[in-house]
């Protein structure tokens, strides 16, 4: 029987191939790291080197990839797609300005490090992507980290997705799942009979 792929191992492996300093973990795995743990089918990275260079680095390791190009004026973007250790991956350029200094350096054992995009950067990337899954992720993240609510709403207005974002922000199931737990107040005087 085929073994289920290990996305975390694949992410660490891919980061080593891309150059740990030159890539940031984004997408569903990064969303999970910031508190909204959900299933994802792939591993996503943004890089600060040219995609042609990324393709060359991966192909030197005998990893087959495809490079798709998009029209930047239409908001499209180029992307490298491939599979590593049985896990599909996407590698993209940073589509929004990201503070690389604010990335979270995460030691992953055996000297390996994974850089995770900052929460603010992740929210910017997700709102720009504008897909239903992306907006749900943004709502979940800002419900967990309310200090970023203003940023998310400002971006939602700019990208014309404010209404969709508000629907998720007011979703009672998501709120129940994501809002930080409140401390129970001690009862005064015990239970009345």
């Amino acid at each position: 029987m085929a073994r289920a792929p290990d996305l975390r191992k694949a992410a660490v492996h891919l980061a080593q191939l891309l150059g740990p300093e030159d890539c940031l973990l984004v997408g569903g795995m990064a969303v999970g790291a910031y508190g909204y743990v959900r299933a994802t089918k792939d591993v996503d990275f943004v890089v600060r080197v040219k995609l042609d260079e990324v393709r060359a680095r991966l192909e030197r390791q005998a990893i087959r990839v495809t490079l798709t190009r998009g029209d930047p004026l239409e908001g499209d973007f180029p992307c490298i797609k491939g599979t590593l250790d049985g896990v599909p991956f996407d590698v993209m350029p940073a589509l929004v300005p990201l503070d690389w200094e604010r990335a979270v350096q995460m030691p992953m054992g055996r000297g390996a490090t994974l850089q995770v995009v900052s929460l603010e950067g992740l929210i910017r990337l997700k709102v720009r992507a504008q897909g239903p899954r992306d907006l749900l992720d943004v709502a979940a993240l800002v419900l967990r980290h309310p200090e970023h609510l203003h940023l998310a709403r400002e971006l939602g207005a700019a990208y014309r997705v404010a209404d969709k974002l508000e629907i998720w922000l007011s979703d009672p199931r998501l709120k129940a799942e994501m809002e930080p737990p409140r401390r129970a107040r001690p009862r005064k005087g015990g239970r009345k009979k």
Partner: protein
Amino acid sequence: MKNPLSARAAILLGLSRPAYGLQIIDRIRDQTGGRVRLRLGSVYPALRDLERQRLVRSWEVPGARGGRRRRYYELTLKGLAAATAQREVIGDLLGGRAEVLPPETIERMRDRLGECAAVSAFVIDLRRRMIEAEAGGG
């Protein structure tokens, strides 16, 4: 004090996220601690120039509740590369250095990555079994 940056250079640095004209001015003023103050009269020609060079793109957004329409601007990938190069030269003008998360927060994030990988593996495996079952039963 004379602006230490041209409007064009300041806009490239100030467009850290999409913004309309007045927002760009406010953001640049805030980011530089008031050292760079642009005027609308210089911002719009510079934006048009940047757009012609495909360094920024723009779109209109209808105003909320009948308010005025706004034209938002955003860096393209080409603009991002130009902004990054510029930031390396004059980054000291901008505040906002790295923030270091406490080790327990990083530890928690790493645990969540593991949880995310585990739940993903479970769903991927479940999906594979369903496909196999459908193929076998069909």
